[in-house]
């Protein structure tokens, strides 16, 4: 029997023992070494040969990932590891590090219970370290720390023992500050420490690692490491032999990460809002393999042979071929065609997968990343939070007519696989739009369309996505239905940032019980009365119903909401989405006859009122901005900071870190298009840089009109600003 086959069998044996399962993710800032580390673990488990680990990048399965050397999709792999005489099944998800792919990281976190955060010893905690930690902690996923590239401290930076110790402790304390800040309200302490064994150190490239327990076991201390690391290849080989990275890390995983039985009772309430006294809640807490099937898909991928594969976490029950399962948000059921687990980029079919595991199934044709799939109809899981919304759009057009249907299909598939991508299909013009997290994100998608699907496409210039937001409180305005028989009286005002944040974090939503929502909104600073009047929430906007006893309003509210949503999808300035607005419905006049207050009357009347109120509330165009960090040798500092300032940006901080200067600032996304090549030539390729979407900011007044007209022209809208409003 082949080695691989043996592992599969061993995995199957272990799947039934939730106590011995660890579902984990490895997450890090880009280039800190996730993929290299994952390969080490695979090699350690005998999945790939030890020699190739570190070069093979088995986790980077898609061709474009290997070409670019970045990880794009969260890939999945299962392996076994013996710790304290017990064999463990470790289901591992590798997550992308580039900010453009943030959505994948969040989704991966839903499937796991522990996150190994990898930090480069030289660079320390970086912006995305913070982002991935936040994503983990928000999902109730327990962190542990691995400080990587310690070989560089020894060989490149030639640090002595004290310097090195100080640097490592600084990294730990930075990471703990982050963890503490993010778990303030929790009753557990998830900070990491060397003494507890929740911190490991090492070199993924040279495949050695240590932790407090490993040092006690092997007798190898930092002194030995420095000596061996310095004595060239032979020393490294010895290190790798005597204290292999994979053992140290996998021991840490087995010892410190919770198994599903420990984790699910804590995680279920944070990711699911259903009735906690129901039977299904109980079987999810117990990880009951005999309970109803409850599966959450966290990733959808396409396999040329098997078709669409849904990967995700099975919280309860046992999933097997032939089952007919509900998919949240769709009618009817899907039939499971096959069930499998991942071994390196490949899927191995197995008979069945029980609760507590990560499964990869086919047949769920209606599922998207984030769907709840279950054997009974149930409250779906909380939608997976995306920290950043799409900020950039590109048009894609097939060059030949023959490719048209295939392109549409591919785009639909892309949208299904990656919810942070938004796709707008326009069959009339053939010019489709894809929106994503950044220039690179879209580049990767178009690359896939071209190379993987072989569709020859034209792509337009990237276009930045804007927002519209009121700046002050409006007067009361009227919206009238076309037939004049229905009238709505509405005001608009900006929502406070705290409330917007609470909505974005999912702390307040229409999906939760009313009382809970009220409390969350009050907590975020909303007036008590207001919180009781909340009628609807759409994106980060809220509608309050302040009317009393208006006849027929209840049955008309659905249409009012439709009109509201319409109006907010296409704001009054440039048909860009509205954000952070509070609307109050003060009064309404409705025709008594249902037929006179149908959708074609009420929707435009509400839409009209919402737009008028926004205009009177001084609605402005907002543009997306990014935090920018550049690490550069000091002689290029002037050039590098010039690249930020020259882009309507602002430099906030400059400081020395090691032998490099760090420049931190912000700049509009629009101006950041093409930054990559400009900064390279400005610094002769010596700068490393990182951007992170930082929300939207009001565009300066003197650019408003010009920008609005530019968007209106692009969208084929009338080239005039909406007329000011007649007030009540």
């Amino acid at each position, binding site marked *: 029997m082949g080695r691989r086959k043996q592992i599969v069998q061993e995995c199957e044996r272990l799947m039934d023992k939730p106590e011995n399962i660890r579902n984990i993710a490895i997450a890090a800032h880009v280039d800190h070494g996730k993929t290299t580390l994952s390969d080490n673990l695979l090699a350690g488990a005998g999945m790939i040969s030890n020699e190739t680990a570190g070069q093979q990048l088995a986790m980077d399965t898609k061709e474009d990932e290997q070409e670019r050397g970045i990880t794009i999709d969260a890939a999945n792999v299962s392996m076994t590891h013996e710790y304290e005489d017990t064999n463990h099944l470790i289901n591992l998800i590798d997550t992308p590090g580039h900010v453009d792919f943030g959505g994948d990281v969040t989704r991966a976190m839903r499937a796991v219970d522990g996150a190994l955060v990898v930090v480069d010893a030289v660079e320390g905690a970086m912006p995305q370290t913070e982002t991935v930690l936040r994503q983990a902690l928000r999902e109730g996923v327990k962190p542990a720390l691995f400080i990587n590239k310690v070989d560089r401290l020894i060989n490149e930076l030639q640090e002595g023992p004290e310097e090195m110790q100080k640097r490592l402790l600084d990294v730990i304390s930075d990471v703990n500050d982050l963890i503490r800040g993010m778990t303030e309200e929790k009753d557990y302490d998830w900070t990491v420490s060397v003494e507890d064994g929740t911190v490991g150190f090492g070199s993924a490239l040279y495949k050695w690692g240590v932790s407090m327990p490993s040092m006690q076991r092997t007798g190898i201390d930092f002194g030995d490491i420095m000596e061996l690391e310095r004595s060239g290849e032979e020393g490294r080989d010895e290190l790798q032999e005597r204290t292999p990275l994979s053992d140290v890390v996998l021991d840490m995983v087995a010892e410190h990460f919770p198994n599903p039985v420990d984790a699910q009772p804590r995680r279920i309430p944070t990711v699911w809002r259903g009735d906690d006294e129901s039977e299904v809640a109980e079987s999810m807490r117990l990880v009951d393999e005999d309970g109803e099937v409850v599966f959450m898909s966290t990733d959808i991928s396409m396999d040329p042979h098997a078709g669409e594969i849904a990967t995700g976490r099975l919280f309860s029950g046992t999933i097997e071929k032939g089952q007919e399962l509900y998919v949240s948000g769709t009618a009817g059921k899907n039939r499971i065609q096959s069930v499998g687990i991942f071994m390196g980029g490949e899927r191995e079919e197995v008979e069945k997968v029980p609760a507590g595991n990560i499964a990869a199934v086919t047949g769920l044709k209606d599922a998207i990343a984030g769907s709840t799939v279950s054997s009974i109809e149930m409250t779906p899981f909380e939608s997976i939070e995306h920290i950043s919304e799409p900020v950039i759009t590109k048009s894609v057009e097939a060059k030949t007519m023959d490719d048209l249907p295939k392109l549409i299909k591919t785009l639909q598939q892309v949208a299904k696989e990656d919810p942070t991508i938004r796709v707008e299909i326009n069959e009339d013009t053939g010019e489709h739009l894809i929106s994503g997290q950044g220039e690179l994100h879209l580049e990767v998608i178009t690359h896939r369309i071209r190379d993987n699907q072989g569709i020859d496409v034209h792509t337009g210039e990237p276009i930045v996505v804007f927002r519209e937001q009121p700046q002050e409180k409006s007067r009361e305005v009227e919206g009238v*239905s*076309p*037939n*004049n*028989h229905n009238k709505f009286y509405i005001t608009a005002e900006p929502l406070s940032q705290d409330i917007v944040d609470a909505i974005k974090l999912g702390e307040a939503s229409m999906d939760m019980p009313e009382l809970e929502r009220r409390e969350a909104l009050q907590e975020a600073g909303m007036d008590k009365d207001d919180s009781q009047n909340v009628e609807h929430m759409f994106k980060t906007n809220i509608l309050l119903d302040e009317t009393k006893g208006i006849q027929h309003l209840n049955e008309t509210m659905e249409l009012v909401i439709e009109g509201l949503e319409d109006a907010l999808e296409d704001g009054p300035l440039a048909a860009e989405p509205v954000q952070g607005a509070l609307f109050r419905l003060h009064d309404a*006049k409705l*025709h*008594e*006859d*249902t*037929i*006179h*207050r*149908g*959708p*074609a*009357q009420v*929707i*435009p009347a509400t839409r*009209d009122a919402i737009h008028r109120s926004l205009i009177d509330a001084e609605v402005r165009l907002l543009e997306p901005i990014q935090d920018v960090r550049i690490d550069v040798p000091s002689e290029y500092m002037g050039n590098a900071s010039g690249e930020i300032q020259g882009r309507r940006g602002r430099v906030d901080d400059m400081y020395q870190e090691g032998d490099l200067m760090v420049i931190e600032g912000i700049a509009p996304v629009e101006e950041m298009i093409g930054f990559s090549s400009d900064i390279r030539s400005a610094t002769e390729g010596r700068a490393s840089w990182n951007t992170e979407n930082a929300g939207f900011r009001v565009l300066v007044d003197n650019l408003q009109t010009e920008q609005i007209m530019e968007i209106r022209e692009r969208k084929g809208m009338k080239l005039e600003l909406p007329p000011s409003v007649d007030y009540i």
Partner: protein
Amino acid sequence: MTDTWVSLFSGGKDSSWALYRALEEGLDVSRLLTVHPSEESYMYHVPETQLARLAAESIGIELVEVEPGDLAAAEAVDSAAQGDAELEPLEAALTDLAEEVDLAGVTAGAIESEFQTSRIQGMCDRLGIDLFAPLWQRDPDELAAEMLEAGFEITILQVAAYGLDESWLGRPLDAEAIEELRELNAEYGVHLLGEGGEFETFVTNGPHMDRRIDLEYDTEWHGDSGRIRITDARLAE
């Protein structure tokens, strides 16, 4: 005279269809009754009620016109009270007519409007006459097909609904238009036959008419509704 019917008639497709069906059923319709409303009427067709005269001439049935005076619908707060007030002149006119003829009932073109139908039914009950409402609760799709099948030629006079733009003014309500309305119905909920005042029509020709009516008009558009202004209307030679 015995058993005479009165057709509540505007010249629009629905009241015309009710009349046509009544004639087909052999009812003796001896009067067309039209109410000239003020602006903003809740219950009656506002545009171009004058057209009713030409239609009556073409149909060959005597027209009775009711001038209700100022109903002040524009300031109406309560639409129910308003609807009742509008009914008064109509009821008065019918009471007068009943002295002249042996009134059996009225025909009306309501399809889905409870508001309109229940009030007219109430009036009929008070007068002790019947209501003939052959469109009531019929499937709009089928009705549209029947009207076109029968040879009704219909022009759109006025639109007031999301999704209906200026291009609909003066447009014939033919099979193509119905098809488009079907799409607008799916997208915006526009009523296929314009119930609820979403569009108003005028029948320019039909099996019950002797001569076609030719229209000349300008269009007027405000915001999200509009109407045509008839500049000339005459019976074709």
